[in-house]
């Protein structure tokens, strides 16, 4: 689906680890994001209480989602806009294309939207003769490079500054080739310069939504560049593209979530721009679109409501779990093979694509639990990964070797007397293999261990063998 390569996570990960540029770029995640969040959290004593409140708001909304979705739609209509319900990615693509065609659109500016990635809207528009232009700096870079975002909030985190400069030189051919492009500020200024005309010329603006507020029928987006505002106010038609679980009941609720979102994501108290849009331009408004559409995607989510997987839908896409995940830090986002990376991606991808298409992802975790410890809405990510492992085991997509090893071990472990003998024998054997070295450098069938590290050997006699002797 959408060229997903989640099944090849293992190979993807090895390639990522061998990619020097990528490894250099990923250093930013480990240091910058983690430190900034820590500082922001330390500065707000009630942060954990806020997380509880945020979790409760999200959980409450999900358990009454039908109600809030209907209330939201009624409000949007009251404000003069339209809501389009789309069960599948296909429907969402077709809906957006129809809106663009009706507007006679030739170019479409886009703010950041992960749902746009999920439904592959850019390719679909381009294939139909409409040019999509990403306006978030990171998304713009990624688009020029013909890539996909590798992070929820920092889509070009996998690209180094030098690579950005190269990309700009290759694509911004109208500019002086001798110009100096070293500072991030210069790069940003150049992107702004190139995008200005596109903002003004766009017929339709598509943004995502961090939240949809049921009480007011408003979409909320947060950005740090202001590109979202230009995308949603300049074109004559605006589309907010979101998935069903983005709903929050009230503005008050949204404000609680915004407080944990920015701190968890970038360590800011608030994002630089927090924009609310609620419908087309009213008489007397200075600006705003003539038409306002909200396209709401289910995309397979509703089937998880009321199930043990429901907590994954609380996610507010702050990316804290990615930033703090040692696996994400090691391999970056593209290795995960689809739109959503990191710990939450390893929970969402099997849900939205099917476990058969994403079987390695829930296994690709040491279950260290750091993700859950930083999640602003307290999603029990390790427990959900384990649930997926259970599904994979039940459907026999967890690998023949794993199943055999597990079955053999279980056979012994449920028979204490046999287990004692196996353990004592293994201890002796390992000690023998290690000889005088105390460690084993290569062990057949244990290449996963000894390929990268020695195996410290036991002294030779198991605990229970000694214990029996002592008594």
């Amino acid at each position, binding site marked *: 689906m959408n060229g997903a390569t989640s099944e090849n996570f293992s190979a993807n*990960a090895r390639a990522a680890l061998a990619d020097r540029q990528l490894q250099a770029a990923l250093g930013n995640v480990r240091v910058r994001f983690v430190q900034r969040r820590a500082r922001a959290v330390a500065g707000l004593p009630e942060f954990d209480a806020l997380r509880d409140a945020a979790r409760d708001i999200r959980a409450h909304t999900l358990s009454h989602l039908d109600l809030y979705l209907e209330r939201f739609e009624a409000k949007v209509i009251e404000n003069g806009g339209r809501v389009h319900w789309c069960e599948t990615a296909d429907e969402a693509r077709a809906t957006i294309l129809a809106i663009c065609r009706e507007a006679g659109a030739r170019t479409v500016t886009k703010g950041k939207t992960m749902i746009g990635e999920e439904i592959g809207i850019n390719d679909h528009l381009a294939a139909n003769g409409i040019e999509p232009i990403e306006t978030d700096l990171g998304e713009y870079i990624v688009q020029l490079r013909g890539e996909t975002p590798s992070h929820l909030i920092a889509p070009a985190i996998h690209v180094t500054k030098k690579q950005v400069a190269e990309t700009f030189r290759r694509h911004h051919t109208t500019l002086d080739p001798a110009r100096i492009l070293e500072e991030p500020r210069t790069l940003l200024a150049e992107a702004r310069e190139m995008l200005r005309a596109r903002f003004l010329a766009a017929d339709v603006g598509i943004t995502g939504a961090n939240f949809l507020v049921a009480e007011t029928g408003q979409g909320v987006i947060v950005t740090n560049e202001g590109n979202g505002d230009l995308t949603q106010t300049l074109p004559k038609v605006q589309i907010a593209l979101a998935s069903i679980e983005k709903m929050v009941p009230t503005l008050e609720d949204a404000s609680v979530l915004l407080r944990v979102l920015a701190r968890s994501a970038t360590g800011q108290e608030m994002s630089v721009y927090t924009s609310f849009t609620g419908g087309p331009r009213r008489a007397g408004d200075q600006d705003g679109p003539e038409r306002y559409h909200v396209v709401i995607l289910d995309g397979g989510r509703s089937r998880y409501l009321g199930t043990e997987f429901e907590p994954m839908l609380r996610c507010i896409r702050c990316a804290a779990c990615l930033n703090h995940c*040692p696996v994400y830090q090691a391999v970056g986002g593209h290795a995960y093979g689809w739109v959503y990376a990191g710990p939450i991606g390893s929970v969402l991808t099997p849900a939205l694509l099917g476990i058969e298409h994403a079987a390695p992802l829930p296994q690709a975790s040491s279950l*260290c639990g750091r993700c859950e410890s930083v999640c602003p809405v307290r999603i029990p990510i390790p427990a959900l990964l*384990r649930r997926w*492992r259970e599904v994979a085991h039940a459907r026999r997509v967890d690998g023949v070797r794993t199943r055999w090893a597990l079955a053999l071990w279980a056979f012994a*472990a449920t028979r204490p007397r046999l287990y004692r003998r196996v353990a004592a024998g293994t*201890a002796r054997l390992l000690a023998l293999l290690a000889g005088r070295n105390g460690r084993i450098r290569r062990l057949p069938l244990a290449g996963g261990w000894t390929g990268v590290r020695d195996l*410290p050997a036991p002294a030779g006699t198991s605990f*229970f063998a000694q*214990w029996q002797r002592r008594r």
Partner: protein
Amino acid sequence: MTAALLVTCLVDLFRPQVGFAAIALLEKAGCSVVVPPDQTCCGQPAWNSGDRATAQALARRVIAAFEPYERVVVPSGSCAGMLHVHYPEVFEGDDTWHARAVALAAKTRELTQYLDELGASSSIGAEHDGAVAFHDSCSALREMNAVDAPRRLLRAVRGLDLRNLADPQACCGFGGTFCVKYPAISDDMVTRKAADIGATGARTLAACDLGCLLNIAGKLSRDGISVRCFHVAELLAGMENTPAIGEPPDSRRTAR
């Protein structure tokens, strides 16, 4: 107080001395220690592999073997976490066993936690000359909240200069079967951990989990970095003159 020791399969197989150190420390702290004979493994490998049926089969044995005692003590954060946090989850939907799992969870302690509860830091007689880096295992840290206890105990070792790692929240890359399923990623993680350990300047590393210790000691050994790795219990029981984890069996050292 009677404490039942869950030896753990890694201690049984790789480092029996940790079990004996635990018994000695518990007895010194005033406990009578029982080692229930029928124990094998807590079932964590099955639970983390999505094999609930096997996890239940093993958990039932552990519950039956350990519930007669007042305390269950485990020289491992992750096995303790299995009993303390996960056993009730393992039996969701099975009221009888769930209740028994909850009861067992309530009396389960990670070793250093329990020693600390018993005020053992005042009676630690061990000595250590120099710096010791401490590695927090993820389960001890986040499932058992055994953060201060091992540190308090280690600080009670005379002459021991305790050093924290730069990023104590970071996983060492062990993760049970994770480390053999994704060796390249695990290697990246343990490489960083080894660098953090090196940066402390300590020549000895202590931790509460043998899984982490085997992983870290194996990496340090592969890279030729000489840091001696011990379970916390071994240092507390004054066993550091025996070969460290992964050291040759005849390298019995005297204090340097």
